[in-house]
């Protein structure tokens, strides 16, 4: 059984690599390279896989899942400038790809337990762009 919980947070970021020129960053990241930053209303969908507990009828306690998402993602990232305030984005470009991978890293251990595992992290940067990450190794 798959269970998906949604959370929202708003944050600003700059997508630019310090080793590249302004012109190169602009070509690579477009408007997102504006050095002063810009923001998004991010939407996070976290999917957990597990068996339904025969007693409680639940795969995962939604209240606990909400607390985990709040503690690991929403509280540290909501209304923050990701590059300046949320490591590792002081040294990792906060693209939606890197954000999805970081959120996976933060959620995997609090969620995984016998019979339950984190299955997918989907991060919407806008309603027109999202990234899915299932924990696979990226080379």
């Amino acid at each position, binding site marked *: 059984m798959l269970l998906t919980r949604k959370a929202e947070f708003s944050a600003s970021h700059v997508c630019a690599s310090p080793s590249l020129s302004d012109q190169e960053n602009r070509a690579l990241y*477009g408007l997102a390279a504006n050095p002063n930053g810009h923001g998004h209303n991010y939407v996070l969908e976290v999917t957990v896989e597990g068996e339904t507990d025969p007693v409680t009828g639940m795969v995962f306690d939604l209240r606990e899942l909400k607390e985990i998402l709040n503690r690991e993602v929403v509280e540290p990232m909501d209304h923050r400038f990701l590059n300046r305030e949320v490591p590792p984005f002081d040294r990792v470009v906060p693209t939606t790809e890197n954000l999805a991978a970081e959120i996976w890293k933060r959620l995997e251990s609090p969620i995984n337990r016998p019979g339950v595992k984190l299955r997918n992290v989907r991060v919407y940067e806008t309603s027109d762009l999202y990234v899915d990450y299932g924990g696979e190794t990226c080379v």
Partner: protein
Amino acid sequence: MRLTRRYRFSASHRLDVPGFSKEENQRLFGKCNNPHGHGHDYVLDVTLEGSPDKSGQIVSRPALDELISGRVLNRFEHKNLNIDVPEMAGVVPTTENLASAIRDVIAREWSFPARLDRVRISETARNIFELEA
């Protein structure tokens, strides 16, 4: 890791099989057989699969937009699919055939290390077609 980006375009069409009688076409396609045609605001979701490169991206957004908007959807944007689009010549411009045509043009123009995973196109919010690439 997969990245999905959404695009929009508008086009007109008429669904009609030339070999069928007027009555057969009417029965098969209903309102979509209106001889004067009609149009839709299509929504296209393009999904890529790959690993982020040094820039932290599976694909550069400006580069993807240039390909999809500038080299693919420009062929379909504000066109009559029965008349104006060579890629649709000889086929009934259903959204199934449109999805295949768009997938083929994207595949032809593709120049990224990431893999084109799928295209998903909605004709209206109620009719959605998805095709693995």
